[in-house]
């Protein structure tokens, strides 16, 4: 119908499949997210480390380059080690960038919808609360995937390609750790950011709240653990908890998590992460409603 006809008709054409509709939200959100030059610059920065990793792996296998920079071939594994620690450190750095990314994007995801009564518009369509949360989480999850497990696995496959299938077979644990370790962190950060965005309407305050949730319990944990000679403090600190899980996923000893004092048991770390996700989900469930019922 031409616009000048100005009449109204029922739509009886094809409809998109219901399962894929949550992906509409990230598609529309990215158009706004990428309008920020600061964000685009930051995203570019996020690919520096994977690129450096790519160069290191290339150097590791390039005899001419090694001799050019005077690295003896028998000591190459010491100078440029490509092992579980190499990949874990890379994931840790990218994981921290994920947190910065969630600070930039997360607070603007739900709060504007709540502020402008946008939720009834979403939820009056064949679109559920779960799909809404899934769509909003996908905005963060896709961006975080692009800087964690996607480049991580590319590096892993590049190393496997250069070192041969036997290296891949022996180090399959690294590949799975990159994939699952990234997704665990993505899930925790996405849910936490969404929960904060749902409860704190003002973006700057939501960013400060996220920073507080990240750093204050961590500081508290350090003090508690140092004074009481325990690991219990880490239960409330996200970052040490996550690095503990990553360390074990990469098959490294818990002492390699690089924290002074007692290492946190793996079970406790899982418990803390799952609890964080469940609390975030409960907060979202309480808030994501078409209308608040005043009892």
């Amino acid at each position, binding site marked *: *119908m031409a*616009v*000048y*006809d*100005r*009449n*109204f*008709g*029922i*739509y*009886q*054409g*094809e*409809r*998109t499949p*219901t399962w894929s*509709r949550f992906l*509409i939200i990230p598609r*529309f959100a990215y*158009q*706004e997210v990428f309008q920020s030059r600061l964000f685009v610059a930051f995203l570019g920065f996020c690919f520096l480390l994977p690129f450096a990793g790519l160069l290191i792996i290339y150097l590791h296998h390039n005899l001419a380059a090694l001799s050019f920079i005077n690295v003896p071939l028998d000591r190459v594994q010491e100078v440029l080690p490509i092992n579980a620690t190499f990949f874990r450190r890379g994931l840790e750095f990218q994981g921290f960038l994920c947190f910065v990314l969630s600070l930039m994007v997360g607070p603007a995801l739900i709060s*504007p*919808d709540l*502020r*402008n*009564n*946008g939720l*009834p*518009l*979403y*939820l*009056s*369509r*064949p*679109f*559920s609360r779960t799909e809404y949360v899934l769509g909003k989480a996908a905005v963060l999850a896709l961006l975080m995937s692009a800087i964690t497990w996607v480049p991580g696995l590319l590096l892993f496959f590049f190393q496997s390609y250069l070192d041969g299938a036997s290296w891949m077979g022996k180090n399959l644990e690294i590949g799975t750790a990159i994939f699952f370790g990234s997704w665990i962190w993505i899930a925790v950060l996405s849910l936490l950011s969404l929960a904060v965005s749902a409860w704190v309407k003002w973006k700057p305050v939501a960013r400060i709240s996220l920073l507080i949730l990240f750093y204050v319990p961590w500081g508290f944990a350090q003090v508690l653990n140092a004074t009481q000679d325990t690991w219990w403090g880490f239960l409330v600190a996200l970052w040490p908890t996550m690095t503990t899980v990553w360390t074990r996923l990469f098959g490294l000893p818990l002492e390699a998590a690089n924290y002074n004092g007692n290492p946190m048991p793996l079970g406790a770390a899982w418990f803390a992460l799952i609890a964080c996700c469940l609390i975030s989900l409960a907060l979202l469930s309480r808030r994501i*409603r*078409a*209308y608040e*019922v*005043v*009892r």
Partner: protein
Amino acid sequence: MTADSSQPVIELQGLEVKFGGRPILKGLNASLTGRCIGLLGPNGAGKTTLLHTLLGFHPPSAGTARIFGKDIQTGAKEIRGLMGYMPENDAFIAGMSGIRFVRLMGELSGLPSEQALERSHEALFYVGLGEARYRKVDTYSLGMKQMAKLAQALVHGPRLIFLDEPTNGLDPAARERMLKLVRDIRDEGKVNIILSSHLLRDVEDCCEEVLVLKDGRVATYCNLQAEREANRKFLQLEVRGGDEAAFTAAVEALGCEMAVDGKQRFKLVLPEGVEIRELYRVAAERQVQIRRLDSKRDSLQDIFLKAMETEVAGHGRV
């Protein structure tokens, strides 16, 4: 109920909704088939709660409701696919232009991307926002936001549209434009409309059927279309002096339907073949002075006020 024997648009069967144990909707029963159905009632009567319940925002605590024969609880998603909803309050997605906002809403309703874009342009032109469609919704005036809300409710071509107080906060010109759009949509004959309002004129202008709610119950049902078609006119009389009782008896003897409408005031319908001069003759014979005689139609206002005055029944219409 209209004479139309087609499937009811909305059926309510003992519908109850409670918030925190407090009953808000109390056993609503109704079957509505009109093209444009009005939900009328004072503030707090339960109009918006009823709309929200039909949209699946609040679960019924008892009873059920059906839209086009589909249960609102078991077929919620399917039903929402057939509906468009224009909320009462300001509602938009911040930071988006009008066209992107309406397109997003179209895509969420299941339209493929290109179709959604095309229909968004059409919907925005239809509601009169064609020139402003690339402006951010946040910068729209209140009237424009109302129109944008209407556009997002229309974009996916629903079979049923819920309009919750569509003329809220509009100036007279914008209000008239909104009502004209509602009438246009109604007259196209492709869509059913549920119009919730506390403004009698809005409902009277647009609706064929009216369900009046009071205190969470159906206070009354009125088929405006049937009333208009019957075109029944009433006479309002104000009399003084003489033998009033004898006068009313004589008027009734003429075959008039008569009701006392206050002290020395009567409301009556003349039967076929009885002229007004008969009333004057009867009055003169009984020395009653007719001080005032108005001919009027029973307006929605009368029906509404009557419903508000009387104690509500468990269900109004059926």
